[in-house]
């Protein structure tokens, strides 16, 4: 038996595909930004004076890293409304993605923070900076730079993982592919094209992050 691949038929659904792609991009953008924020907060908590905060952060990281994203997603989307926390599918999707990314980034950024030379902290303390000022101005920027490539990789992993939010009917790229193949039965072609889009997205994301990183971490002389 031979099968003729038929990609041309997908053109009828290009709007659906592009809408899905756009939704994936939006989901990724917002969860990347919020996830990085959460990761920074998590890392700060992980190294906080307050022991309760430290334990909380550690428990959060372990809980998320040792359970599948899809279960986290279902828990947020199905479980939380059952205790009165209602939200739309998109909100649930974003929330789950942010929580997931935040946990990994907490661990990554913490590692960057731990590599801070002790002398840097002492110099800052001697200059009179408060703990918060030291964390934000002295510790965080170089720490983030140290682990930047790991942060980038994790953000890309979460972008790819966002395919799973199709399972709660968020109309993103995978959902679009599901929809198309349910109409024209060209499953293989639909998913192959969607996969290609993901591949391109991953590539572009790395490119964008590298450009941002090169700018943000440039050590070129500044003029007065």
């Amino acid at each position, binding site marked *: 038996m031979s099968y003729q691949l038929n990609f041309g038929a997908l053109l009828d659904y290009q709007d659906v595909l592009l809408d899905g792609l756009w939704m994936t991009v939006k989901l990724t953008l917002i969860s990347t930004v919020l996830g990085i924020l959460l990761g920074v907060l998590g890392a700060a908590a992980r190294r906080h004076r307050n022991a309760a905060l430290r334990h909380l952060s550690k428990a959060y990281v372990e809980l998320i890293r040792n359970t599948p994203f899809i279960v986290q997603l279902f828990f947020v989307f199905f479980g939380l409304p059952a205790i009165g926390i209602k939200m739309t599918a998109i909100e649930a999707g974003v929330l789950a993605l942010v929580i997931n990314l935040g946990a990994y980034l907490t661990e990554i950024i913490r590692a960057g923070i731990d590599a801070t030379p002790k*002398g840097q902290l002492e110099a800052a303390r001697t*200059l009179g900076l408060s703990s918060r000022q030291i964390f934000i101005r002295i510790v965080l920027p170089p720490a983030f730079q140290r682990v930047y490539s790991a942060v980038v990789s994790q953000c890309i992993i979460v972008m790819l993982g966002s395919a799973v939010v199709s399972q709660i009917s968020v109309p993103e790229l995978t959902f679009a592919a599901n929809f198309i193949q349910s109409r024209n039965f060209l499953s293989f072609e639909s998913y192959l094209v969607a996969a290609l889009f993901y591949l391109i997205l991953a590539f572009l994301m790395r490119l964008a992050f590298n450009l941002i990183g090169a700018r943000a971490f440039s050590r070129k002389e500044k003029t007065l």
Partner: protein
Amino acid sequence: MSLVSVRDVHKYFGELHVLKGIDLTINAGEVVSIIGRSGSGKSTLLRCMNGLESYEQGAIILDGMEVSTDEFQVRKLSHSVGMVFQSFNLFPHLTVGENIMLAPKLIKRVGKEEAKKLAMEVLEKVGLADKFGQYPEKLSGGQQQRVAIARSLAMKPKVLLCDEITSALDPELVGDVLKVLEQLAAEGMTLILVTHEMNFARDVGDRVVFMHQGKVHETGDAKEVLANPQTPELQQFIGAVL
């Protein structure tokens, strides 16, 4: 009135008794060199003076303030005491200018233009006015250390603590840093330095404090003490380093 007064200070690292009752009074404008063998407690004493290290017994009064490791107290102290480290400790993600302006802006709420003026002023003092926009990694060790001094000076401290600030430098770069210190001394800055530069201690310093096993073992006028050490320990020490 004395600027720094250390009274019967004891310091322990766990079981280890590192400072065993230090008494020391330093007046404004004095240049005091702390010398002694490795492990005698020189760094620890210096670090106790600006709240980087706690002490268990005794008291340190600096510029009328009781020194402690309490964050609030350390912030207050930063107006009166600066510190320069062996390893420079410049912030790598900030330019030279940003390194210097950071504390005046954050702690003293100095305005942008004034901070810049201040930074240029202290940079000129250490001979590096042209490095304002440069990042530390582009500077030599000697230049980095001079920037670190400038950074401390920008807070206009009354006393500058220096812990072996030339020890990490290539020999040919040591001179530039010492020249800056000498100039500061001439301007009347109070300096407390842990150092192995005996010539500097003798020629520029007013007083030498020889530490031995956690105690001030011998102290006095720099030229006199170094020329005529009284205790066998100091004689041996001077013999070893010269």
